[in-house]
């Protein structure tokens, strides 16, 4: 099996799906000749032509809204939002429209649209090229939010998203794009949306995370192993609706839970994860449910000193994990 990068897994999934199903097409800013500002759509215009790899005008509400119309017609649009921070102008189309198409028409219409967007920081992206925006959408029934952490999951989940009959927001951590590599089968496979994944088995503490910070947790877990601390690590993968069963199972396993994400703490995904545990398996717990998250400031600043202050890293994660283990 080839070892490829996280972003190459994106491109691979797109290319395979476009080959498999001619209703699949890509639209967004600079996705064509430029191959995307991150190169996620690199080579697609050469293979599929400009009719299926559309450089759109600079207008996110139209990118999503036109995608919705095309999806309703029977196509499988994959819209790219250049940076997750720029999804805001499209919020009305996503929340009021895509998410409610099926429900409001009593199952007559539906909207199989994928919206891909790179999110997250650690790339000198400053306040507006670093944000985690998932929490905005994680209260919207009708939507699914996927945020994979490994190339293998990227491929399987992006393919699943494209084949899904409902709108899926697909958030790709931009720091993972070239940093994270992994084995990815050449064959066709999908992974189930809505299912979390145990990325490491352990017995002392449970860490629940997703995206870049999941890797920090895995790295920290490996180091803590040497100190005799065994961490169980759950990758949420789908952020909405959450995989409650897997969360309860993982929490119950060790009775000590640390939830980690890069997004701000208050109102982040971690709150809901914690609430599920506190509601479903409180008496399995041996420690308060801890959260290690980005500070509650508007976003990640540009200056390296400030960006570093914002970002989690394996050290900060290890410390929090050790503290919990020792609780």
């Amino acid at each position, binding site marked *: 099996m080839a070892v490829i990068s996280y972003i190459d897994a994106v491109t691979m999934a797109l290319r395979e799906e476009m080959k498999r199903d001619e209703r699949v*097409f890509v639209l967004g800013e600079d996705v064509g000749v430029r191959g995307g500002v991150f190169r996620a759509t690199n080579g697609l215009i050469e293979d599929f032509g400009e*009719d*299926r790899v559309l450089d*759109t*005008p600079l*207008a996110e*509400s*139209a990118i*999503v*809204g*036109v*995608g*919705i*119309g*095309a*999806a*309703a*017609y*029977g*196509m499988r*649009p994959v819209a790219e939002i250049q940076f997750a921070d720029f999804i805001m*102008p499209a919020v*009305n*189309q996503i929340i*009021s*429209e895509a998410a*409610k*198409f*099926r*429900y*409001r*028409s*009593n*199952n*007559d*219409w*539906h909207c199989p649209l994928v919206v891909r967007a790179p999110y997250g920081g650690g790339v000198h992206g400053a306040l507006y090229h670093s944000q985690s925006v998932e929490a905005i959408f994680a209260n919207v*029934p*009708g939507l*699914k939010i996927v945020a994979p952490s490994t190339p293998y999951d990227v491929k399987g989940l992006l393919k699943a998203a494209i084949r899904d*009959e*409902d709108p899926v927001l697909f958030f790709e951590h931009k720091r993972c794009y070239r940093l994270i590599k992994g084995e990815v089968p050449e064959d066709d496979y999908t992974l189930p*949306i*809505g299912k979390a994944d145990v990325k490491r088995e352990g017995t002392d503490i449970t860490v629940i995370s997703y995206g870049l910070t999941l890797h920090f947790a895995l790295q920290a877990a490996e180091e803590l192993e040497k100190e005799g601390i065994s961490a169980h690590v759950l990758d949420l993968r*789908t952020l909405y*609706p959450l995989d409650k069963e897997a969360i309860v199972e993982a929490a119950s396993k060790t009775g000590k839970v640390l939830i980690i994400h890069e997004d701000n703490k208050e109102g982040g995904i971690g709150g809901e994860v914690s609430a599920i545990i506190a509601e479903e398996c409180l008496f399995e717990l041996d420690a308060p449910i801890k959260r290690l998250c980005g500070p509650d400031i508007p976003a990640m600043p540009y200056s390296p000193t400030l960006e570093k202050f914002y970002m989690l890293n394996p050290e900060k994660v290890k410390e929090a994990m050790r503290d919990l283990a020792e609780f």
Partner: protein
Amino acid sequence: MLAAENRHIELGLSDEQVMDMYYYMVLARKLDERMWLLNRAGKIPFVISCQGQEAAQIGAAFALEKGKDYTCPYYRDMGVVLVMGMTAKDMMLSAFAKAEDPNSGGRQMPGHFGSKKHRILTGSSPVTTQVPHAVGIGLAAKMRGEDVVAYTSFGEGSSNQGDFHEGANFAGVHDLPVIFFCENNKYAISVPLKKQLACESVADRAVGYGFPGVKVDGNDPLEVYKVMKEAVERARKGDGPTLIEAHTYRLVPHSSDDDDSSYRAREEVEEARKNDPILRFRHYLMDTGLLTDEKDEDLQNRIQKEVDEATDYAENAPFPEPETALRYVYGSGEVK
């Protein structure tokens, strides 16, 4: 309107077709009036009207091909959806929010149209979101090489939303078979034209998107039909979108929750009533000899009966079962 005889023949409309137009106009009006009565009697919670805009809507819809073209209408477009295939019963089922309502199974307010069968895209309340949808349909049809025109309509107030601009521009760039139909009824709820937009005409905005903009008397279904027909032909030929602005007047308050006396003079409304599109079209049909007082009475009675039956049926139809509220958040293979 010049009372030139048989203008419709010149436009390629048969006598039967214009009589159908008239039928739909009266049907829409009578359904709408009934809904107000039902609302005032406390039987239905809400009405939003097409009154005064029937000529624009029905003139426009007649230029489309049923079962082939797509419509993304707005909440006043009862005239449009009736022509595209919905029935009086469908309208009343929606007004009463009954399980059988084909638009939404009673989930949405009346005026939130939708029917896959009739190629009417499901609509919502936030105005103008349907505009990019129509563009997406136009894009998809063009990609698939299918002969489809996408029609979308909206009020003049809604033409100030960002989605109008973004959608129109996208369609212009890709030369898509989309018709943007603005029903300019002079008010956005209480806000009069001059506080909504400073341009002479909404149609002027088309130049900013590189396609034609046309102004038309929305009280004349034949004039509307004519400009729509031209727009449909342009679209079918691959010549791209058209923006049409139909000048109309909303004869009743914004909705059953509104009281329009606070923002417009009764005289203004009375004046507009003299130009009621249904009256005008009736005159035209009488002038051309297609309609007589007797025939008109017959038609009115037939429609009255249709409305009565639809009302009875809908009133007696069951509400959705409470627990069905949980259905259809996602498709099968749901994650929940």
